[in-house]
């Protein structure tokens, strides 16, 4: 039965998130944009306590041990949370403790014991963070096929060597808290993608160093770092997936792809949140000048501003529905690769376009740092870059619908 009824429990979560966004994020959004690398501890501590009270150590959906009543909603709920918190501030949202892309990878690729072990760090008294490091200086989009960081087995340990860049929350995970980073490394450089595996490297592991903090266009509250691994030793059990490289099989690699099927719609949700913030803000500013939007009129009777706003709203709503569908599929344990990439493509386009237009429409006000519009414009662009650029996600969709391999379409 086709239905667009928002589940009551998700509605409640969204209302709660909106309160947090309004009270804990918006008031400090500008401050942390202007004080790059300062850590928003108030927000972080608040979120840590709030999530403890909600009984969720992590905002990443868990495999519930309790018997489920009704359908699974974890991914859908998460999309709503991320949308709302990014509406508050996407830079601050990326500082949320208790599980990020690192947890997502563990959840997608780890065994039950590994999930238990690695994610438990988030349930302690102090807020902790995690991160996921795939990108390297020589390659981003070409990952994971081009991973050069190596993992060599030495008895019951793996020895990691290499350099990772652009790791979101890497500083918070390794330096500011006792968290962990998932490092993608190859156990067999000759095997290409088939040899690539995720490894968990916990904070404090010798040989794992944060070497650089990036200065960015936007999402400045979020730290983006380089990590160097120099003879970094981790226990054998920190490998996720098979320690063997089977010929012609890319099982270990599939773990990464599974991660993206879950995380791409989440980036889309974040993008939608930023786009909605910008659009609502423009509408509100226009309203203050007594300019309302006359929905229902044909384009020939609309002003340009009305037309722009209506078109952007149309795009926003359809993108959001696509995102929910991708997450619904994930909750239903159905394949969602194509929808995950589709919503990521569209959300990247959406947020870039909406924020660009928002600044343009509001003219000197849009461009001014008195308002958040220009900040959202800067924050927006990352959504079209990480977790696969717009081009890479178009490639994924295209390959799927054309039934092409990487070799046929690259």
């Amino acid at each position: 039965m086709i239905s667009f009824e928002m589940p009551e429990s998700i509605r409640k979560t969204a209302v709660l998130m909106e309160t947090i966004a309004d009270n804990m994020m918006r008031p400090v959004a500008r401050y942390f944009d202007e004080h790059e690398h300062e850590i928003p501890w108030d927000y972080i501590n608040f979120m840590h306590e709030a999530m403890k009270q909600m009984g969720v150590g992590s905002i990443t959906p868990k495999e519930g041990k309790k018997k489920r009543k009704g359908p699974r909603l974890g991914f859908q709920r998460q999309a709503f949370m991320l949308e709302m918190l990014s509406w508050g501030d996407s830079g601050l949202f990326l500082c949320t403790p208790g599980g990020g892309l690192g947890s997502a990878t563990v959840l997608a690729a780890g065994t039950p014991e590994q999930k238990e072990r690695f994610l438990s760090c988030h349930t302690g008294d102090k807020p902790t963070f995690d991160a996921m490091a795939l990108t390297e200086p020589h390659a981003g989009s070409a990952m994971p096929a081009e991973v050069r960081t190596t993992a060599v087995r030495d008895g019951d340990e793996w020895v990691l060597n290499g350099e990772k860049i652009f790791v979101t929350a890497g500083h918070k995970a390794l330096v500011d808290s006792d968290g962990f980073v998932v490092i993608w490394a190859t156990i067999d450089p000759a095997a290409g993608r088939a040899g690539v595996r995720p490894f968990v490297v916990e904070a404090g592991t010798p040989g794992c160093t944060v070497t650089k903090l990036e200065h960015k266009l936007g999402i400045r509250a979020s730290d983006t770092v380089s990590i160097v691994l120099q003879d970094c030793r981790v226990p054998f059990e920190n490998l996720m997936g098979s320690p063997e490289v089977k010929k012609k099989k890319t099982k270990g690699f599939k773990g990464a792809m599974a991660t993206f099927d879950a995380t791409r719609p989440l980036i889309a949700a974040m993008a939608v949140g930023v786009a909605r913030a910008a659009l609502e803000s423009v509408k509100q500013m226009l309203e203050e000048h007594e300019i309302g939007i006359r929905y229902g009129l044909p384009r020939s009777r609309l002003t340009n501003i009305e037309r722009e706003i209506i078109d952007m709203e149309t795009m926003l709503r359809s993108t959001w529905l696509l995102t929910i569908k991708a997450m619904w599929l994930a909750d239903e344990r159905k394949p969602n690769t194509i929808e995950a990439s589709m919503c990521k493509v569209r959300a990247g386009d959406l947020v870039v376009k909406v924020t660009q237009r928002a600044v343009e429409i509001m003219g000197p006000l849009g461009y001014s740092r008195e308002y958040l519009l220009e900040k959202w414009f800067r924050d927006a662009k990352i959504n079209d870059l990480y977790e696969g650029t717009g081009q890479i996600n178009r490639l994924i969709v295209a390959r799927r619908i054309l039934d092409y391999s990487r070799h046929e379409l690259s």
Partner: protein
Amino acid sequence: MYSFEPDEEQRMLIEAVERYATNDLRTAAHDADEAGELPVELIEKGWGLGVLQASIPEAYGGFGDRSAVTGVLAAEAMGWGDLASALAVMLPATYAMPVLLGGTEEQKTRWLPPVIEAEWKPYVAAFIEPSFDFYAGDMRTTAKKNGDVYLLNGEKAYVPFAETAEAFLIYAVVDGQTQAFIVPAGAEGLTIGEREKLMGIGALPTYQVKMDDLLVPLESKLGGEQGFDFSPVLASTQVAIAALAVGVSKAALDYALPYAKEREVWGVPIAQKQAIAFMLAEMATEVEAIRLLVWEAAWMLDVGKEASKEAYMALNGASDMAMTVTDQAVQVLGGHGYIREHPVELWMRNGRGISTFAGLAMV
């Protein structure tokens, strides 16, 4: 709960409509467009699928309850086959659905069974008007009460099968409100103009219609004395046209995609070039996103939520989608796309019309 899966009954209906769209509409579309005429048997077969009949309660001659969601699912499948034929098959709904939604009990009992219980007959609506800034909420056709009759004056356009229509549902403004009147064929003061020549939907005969002090008895005003609420009717036609647009766009994608895998340049299929592959990916993404927008608006109508804005936005998105996607399909085929042997140019012509077609279908 969110769910994006049609139920069993809907799936069966979709399958039946898809078969008809593939075997009958698709094969007839080209010649019908060239000839400017639809074979009657083709329309009758589509009518026989019972899409409208299934959404009219038994009391009025049908065998089910109205579901806009089911309606848009069927419309998409039919639009995929051929837009002009789909509009013809669905035509009686533009007459019956407003009666169902806005008619008094007496009007429903009187006006619905002749439409629903019979074979396909052109029961039509006169909705669109021939002005560039036509707006359903501010029509120029007027109805003025004069004693125990209404006097209708104005001009309509895009009235399908007006020449052979059994009866018309004519929209006109009464005291600033859009209202509708049932008018039998041949009524005095009703003039059917020349058949229109349009860029697309060429197989669907449409006409301009003039009302010149057309006398309509009070009891022929939809909803009786106090009239009816136009907004759900408007929303219903907006989602119907939007759903048809999804079908047209999906057709264009489904045609361009295998073509791109076949057609080679410099020894490789054009689909292996990103410029083409990305276009196809964008077309697929667009269709999927707008389809959900249409479904949501239809679902809101079904659960009785105010859906005016959503239906409007669904059609807004759908008309851009239809234009973009059908244009991209022509682009994928290159010069061949411009030749009338391939259907993509027809879909492009039809696609451009979506923004104008509200009023021509209802679910």
